[in-house]
């Protein structure tokens, strides 16, 4: 294994705790708040954040967003894409929406997610929380809440692994050269 572990389980827990607190400070009232996680890891993080809130502040609606059909390259795509579908069973209109994603990179996913949410109705506001901000934006998008900012090279991969899907909580940096060798 050439992958460098950027964050272990404990670090992921701390970063999520930090995110939760920051979000809690910003949204004094959670009544009109809705969490929407971007599939396939952001939805898991959104659920965790919502569970953490539920203990202290009450129940927050949480949904999962599949942005596939809102990608800016959708009509040109020729490779296979898995559309898993969105599950948002609450009304986004007039609600403060917190988008949650695992990694913020080019910003294209977030743009697609904003379009996808606005198509469902006009929210009061949209904010963004990410576990890892790895830089290299290609769009004017910044997160409101960042678990951890990491300097990376453009051709490196940052992979967030989560218990619910991957069996373990950690963030792995996969170097370009390593990918070449392991391929």
């Amino acid at each position, binding site marked *: 294994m050439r992958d460098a572990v950027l964050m272990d389980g404990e670090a992921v827990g701390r970063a999520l705790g930090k995110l939760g607190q920051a979000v809690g400070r910003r949204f004094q009232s959670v009544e009109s708040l809705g969490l929407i996680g971007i599939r396939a890891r952001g939805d898991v993080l959104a659920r965790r954040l919502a569970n953490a809130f539920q203990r202290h502040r009450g129940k927050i609606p949480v949904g999962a967003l599949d942005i596939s059909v809102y990608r800016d390259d959708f009509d040109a795509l020729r490779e296979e894409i898995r559309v898993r579908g969105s599950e948002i*069973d609450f009304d986004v209109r007039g609600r403060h929406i917190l988008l949650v994603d695992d990694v913020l990179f080019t910003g294209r996913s977030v743009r697609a997610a904003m379009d996808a949410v606005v198509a469902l109705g006009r929210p009061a506001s949209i904010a963004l929380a990410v576990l890892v901000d790895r830089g290299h934006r290609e769009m004017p998008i910044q997160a409101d809440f960042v678990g951890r900012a990491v300097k990376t090279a453009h051709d490196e991969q940052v992979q967030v692994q989560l218990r619910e899907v991957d069996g373990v909580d950690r963030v792995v940096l996969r170097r370009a050269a390593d990918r070449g060798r392991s391929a």
Partner: protein
Amino acid sequence: MAVTKSEIRIDPERLARDLRGLSRIGLNEDGSVTRVAFSAAELRARHYMIHLLQQAGLAVRVDGIGNLIGRVEGEGKGPAIALGSHVDSVPQGGRFDGAVGAVAALEVARAIRDAGVRLRRPLEVLVFAAEESSRFGFSTIGSSAMAGASDPDRLLALTDKHGERLGEILGRFGIARDDVVAVRRPPGEVGHYLELHIEQGRVLAEEGKRLGVVRAIAAPCRLKITYRGRADHSGSTPMHLRRDALVAAARLVAHVEDVCAAPGAVPVVGTVGVIDARPGAMNVIPGEATLWIDLRSTSLAERTACRDAVLGEARRLAQARGLEIEVATLMEDAPVPMDSGVVELLARLCAERSVDHLVMDSGAGHDAMQMAHIARAGMLFIPSREGISHNLKEWTSAEDIALGAQVLLEAALRLMGLDA
């Protein structure tokens, strides 16, 4: 106190709002919408519908060809009562075609939920994939797959103008042949299927009626005829030496009109909507011409007689002009009568409400004609202003949409055995 049907009302504002929301997806600058089957815009429209259905408390699944099935279980297991339509559109189409029926079906489910009605049978909202034939030259793809009316392999082999097969497109979403085969639902799963749709013609408007109860759906026979002659110089080829494919095609267009305009027991309509002439230069005699012919009627016999007359003339023209001819039948569906019990119920509901209505035939094809293979199907039409459809000027009043949705709701309740 038991809830009776008369207390249950659809919410016209909510219905209009969601129809507006759907209209924004694939909206063009001129106000028309383009949500061609399996394009990003159509998938976004489905994404929107999934959201609204989930919000309304329906369990939603997407089958192997992209049909949405929203379902509320009933107390009884029995066959479901399904309401639906489609959200794909023709290029630069109107905002009401299909969309009205899909959103009305959703609104009926919401009104029933809001009233706290205990369902005696499961209720389904169906949003069918690829109803329009614009992309693949084949209409009602999703509903015909659900009804088992089309061979899955034939559907998968359908090709759009870019040469892309439906099978390839589905494959990109990870959908395999087996998933498409599994789309078919056995008879008995859906007991009734009701669809609200804009008329797309001017019969209701001309007759001054507010609702149409569809008795039968005319089915299209679609032919693709190619003439092959010789592409020669337009200046140096004397008239008597020419083998002009386009002239034969032009004479056939006129013949289609003559054959269909001749009075028959049941009307047949015939259209040549597309002619493709090659090589397509002013100074070259067209060496090849292809016509796409669409014949429709509620009478299979009358339509077949017209088809035979058109094909006879097509071959005669080829022979007389020394052209090769190739005939392909793209589609040849049988006209579909709607369930007589449902027709009677819809007409009775209109009469009870003193709604001016007309029992009529549908010239256009609809998902209901496919669902009629596996369920007792019926359709309600609402007027299209000036009969315009497949066009940005397509328009139906909010009042007519609300009235149609209300009758749809009452029909669903009656079928559920919830008479007042």
